[in-house]
């Protein structure tokens, strides 16, 4: 039987507000344990929450970014459960009336095509602290720095059918929230955490199968692997005639497997009820309009604009807008050199490969937009062949100077002087009589293959600087015996 995979995703996004969602404590990653938790975060007796306006604004920005309906009156609720890193014994969340209601999100797939995902809702809540199990033998430490960090929990409809779609969604989400500036979206540091609800059903069936929830998968690659192993596990069970238990599972990246969390944690009755310490969030149209007016250009709009303004392919445009840094780099380069397609090729080709090789981000690249523009311009005006261009790129990467300086220092100027090339060609022809005879005896198809030998010799003799197009032309004429 063929099986169809059905998935919905829940993403917990840490919002990059200056302070926590309900207290004035700083909201930063990586401090010493328990130094960024104030009495409110610690759930000390008598402490009360005060809502951070910036968190509300960020949630509304997100909602507008996915064309969602904004909840004009949303409320906070208490989600009750005991855990050592949950200081109050309840998490303040939004259950009954979320701030962001249904929306849709256009996700570019790797080939550049768009794929539409329905967002069910997104709500504000506070993060819990962290239990530290590996620092004290036989004991658990609690670090409450994270307690009270604002989270936006983004829930989708079960619209995903492949792991590729899920990863594309997460990448698009990452790009959206970084464009908005509401989160750094860093999965490794836990700023963006993903839970995957996954079930299988016989292909063609309408009914959903029993799902499992895979918790806290912390990289795009692990998302892909976790989906693959969990789908495989479910398929094997189903094919053995066994049923799937609805449960929460953890993905273990080291062993590449999912395993069941204790059922006790799954069976929690959270006893949600409205948080009496906070007033409802009431947003009027003027507020929403003001937030909307301040929104930056978002990835979808930018992608469309790149396609139209720069005549880029869907694929190139999608790649270039995937991060704001890349899109800005692209536009700065094009503004300087006027060559959109060539810039895209350099960025998505040599530059991406070099960054990848050295494990650098674009912000840390030794080549800035103006450097690249200098190179692109020299290839465009024929000063450099694409082959020489690669050498200049190498020089730029090593910070040897601007493209023009490198061309001068390395002596890389392309030779397009017909007279100089003709004498080179004459020398090569007279030095290789056998090959010349062979060429002249061959038919047209064979000649096309044999000419490569002569081109190679000439390029070698010119130290790669001969204009290959011109060489081809002149050589063909010379060999024809004109």
């Amino acid at each position, binding site marked *: 039987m063929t099986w169809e995979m059905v998935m919905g995703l829940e993403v917990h996004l840490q919002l990059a507000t200056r302070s926590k969602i309900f207290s004035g404590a700083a909201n930063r990653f990586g401090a010493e344990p328990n130094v960024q938790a104030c009495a409110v975060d610690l759930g000390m*007796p008598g402490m009360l929450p005060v809502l951070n306006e910036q968190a509300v604004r960020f949630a509304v920005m997100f909602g507008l970014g996915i064309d969602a309906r904004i909840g004009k009156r949303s409320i906070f609720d208490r989600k009750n459960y005991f855990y050592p890193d949950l200081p109050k014994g309840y998490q303040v969340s939004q259950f009954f009336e979320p701030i962001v209601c249904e929306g849709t999100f256009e996700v570019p797939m790797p080939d550049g095509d768009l794929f539409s995902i329905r967002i069910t809702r997104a709500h504000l809540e506070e993060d819990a602290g962290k239990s530290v199990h590996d620092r004290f033998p036989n004991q658990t430490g609690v670090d409450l720095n994270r307690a009270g960090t604002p989270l936006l929990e983004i829930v989708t409809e079960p619209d995903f059918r492949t792991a590729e779609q899920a990863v594309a969604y997460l990448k698009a989400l990452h790009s959206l929230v970084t464009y908005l500036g509401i989160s750094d979206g860093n999965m490794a540091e836990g700023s963006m955490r993903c839970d995957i609800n996954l079930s299988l059903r016989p292909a063609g069936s309408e009914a959903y199968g029993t799902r499992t929830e895979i918790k806290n998968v912390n990289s795009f690659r692990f998302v892909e692997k976790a989906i693959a192993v969990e789908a495989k596990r479910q398929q094997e069970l189903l094919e053995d005639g066994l049923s799937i238990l609805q449960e929460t599972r953890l993905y273990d990246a080291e062993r590449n497997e999912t395993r069941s969390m204790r059922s006790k944690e799954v069976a929690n009755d959270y006893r949600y*009820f409205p948080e009496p*310490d*906070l007033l409802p969030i009431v947003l009027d149209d003027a507020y929403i309009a003001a937030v909307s007016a301040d929104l930056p250009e978002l990835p979808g709009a930018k992608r469309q604009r790149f396609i139209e303004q720069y005549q880029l392919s869907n694929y190139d445009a999608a790649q270039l807008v995937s991060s704001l840094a890349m899109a800005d780099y692209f536009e700065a380069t094009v503004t300087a050199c006027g060559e959109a397609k060539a810039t895209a090729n350099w960025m998505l080709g040599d530059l991406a490969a070099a960054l990848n090789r050295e494990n650098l981000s674009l912000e840390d690249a030794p080549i800035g937009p103006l450097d690249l523009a200098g190179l692109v311009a020299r290839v465009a005006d024929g000063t450099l062949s694409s082959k020489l261009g690669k050498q200049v790129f190498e020089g730029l990467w090593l910070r040897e100077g601007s493209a023009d300086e490198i061309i001068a220092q390395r002596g890389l100027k392309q030779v397009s002087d017909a007279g100089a090339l003709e004498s080179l060609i004459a020398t090569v022809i007279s030095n290789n009589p056998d090959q010349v005879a062979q060429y002249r005896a061959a038919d047209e198809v064979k000649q096309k293959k044999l000419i490569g030998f002569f081109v190679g010799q000439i390029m070698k003799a010119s130290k790669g600087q001969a204009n290959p197009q011109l060489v081809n032309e002149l050589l063909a004429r010379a060999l024809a015996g004109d």
Partner: protein
Amino acid sequence: MPDINLATATAAEVLGALNNRDISSVELTQAYLSRVDALNGHLNAVITVDHEGALTAAKDADDARHRGEGGILNGVPLLHKDIFCTSGLRTTCASRMLENFTPPYDATVVSKLKAAGAVTLGKTNMDEFAMGSSNETSYFGPAHNPWDLSCVPGGSSGGSAAAVAAGLAPLSTGTDTGGSIRQPASLCGITGLKPTYGRVSRFGIIAFASSLDQAGPMTRTVEDAALMLNAMCGLDPHDSTSADMPVPNFHDALRGDLKGLRIGLPKQYFSELLDVRVANRIQDALKELEAEGATLVDVDLPHTQEGIATYYVIAPAEASANLARYDGVRFGHRCDDPTDLMDLYARSRSEGFGSEVQRRILVGTYALSAGFYDAYFKKAQQVRRIISNDFKQAFDQCDLIAGPSAPGVAFSVGAKSHDPIAMYMEDVYTLSVNLAGLPGLSLPAGLINGLPIGLQLIGRAFDEATLLQAGHRFQLRTDHHRLAPPFGEIS
């Protein structure tokens, strides 16, 4: 000591003596501390006495007065209910759970009263986590009623009421979630005001039921309550539910007679449930208000009885969450040698909480649990709105509502402690006022067999001024509030 009888002294009188330089705050504070030391063994009204802190604060108040500075209560000694967090001073909430808890912060009420110059003598006894109507659920044992030491002072602010009645301090703070200021004020013969929900900040008050809790003054006179309310109240950026409403000068508002004031009498407050002797005292009190120019009208509060059930769903539900933080992990009582996490939770909480607190946590947890939420919590929220509307409609016909504060006088220690329902009935006249978020004032209205009873006045939201004005006029015509318990004269 100059002409101050601590057993009956009001804050206004004490302020007069301080301002005339008849006495210093240090002398006054020392005198009250001595009285606490001498009498508290009988009353058990105070859990923690802060001799050193009080004398330091008194010295500061005297210095300020010499410089011509100081707030409206400068140098006046006061006791805080042990539910208000006091920086550096143990705050127990009368629970074993917080027996050794010293907060690093002051409640807003505490810091405001400090800023007004009040001198904190210590912390008063109460029902554990403010859950009770007799002060008997305190981990530190019951406080006793100074009018009859074998009787309870009421609760939950029983220690505060007993302390003011016995003259251990002219002022004390209380909190009122379902009658916890007004019922003990009634049983101890003092004046107690529960302000409108949102009038006084809840920041730093150990939460029982967040949507109902409200702090207020417990005093001998309405005049003192007006002074103290001004010092306590106002918008607090640390409490999102505190109200951004204008704060009148309540002391100025005491002036003027009651001509044209319409006082509503809900028939539900004068039913057969009410002790006939109490009913008679209330009728006497109403005659005094009429004599001041008020007119009496009948009003209807048809869901008074449902108030109890509603309250006993909402308050425990909120409490079940508010008390979840006492888990033995970060602060408060932790059991010895827990075998695992569940054991740590179960034993720390079983040992740290008394039986009434445990009962309410269980009731509240049940009311919120899957499958019961709609039938209990949601229904209670709906009834709460209906009760609130009942009051709104009643206030179309009147300006104040009057009735008893409690169904009877103080009862013997132990008389109701094994009958939770009988105990819950103590609050039948008060807790619907909390559900509606309205201000309520209990005024001494005479004695029955030597034990006080209270008249309750209920006002419109944020109209404490009218409430206090009526109460003050009543006290100008009567001397119930001047009666001191026989106990108070000992020393």
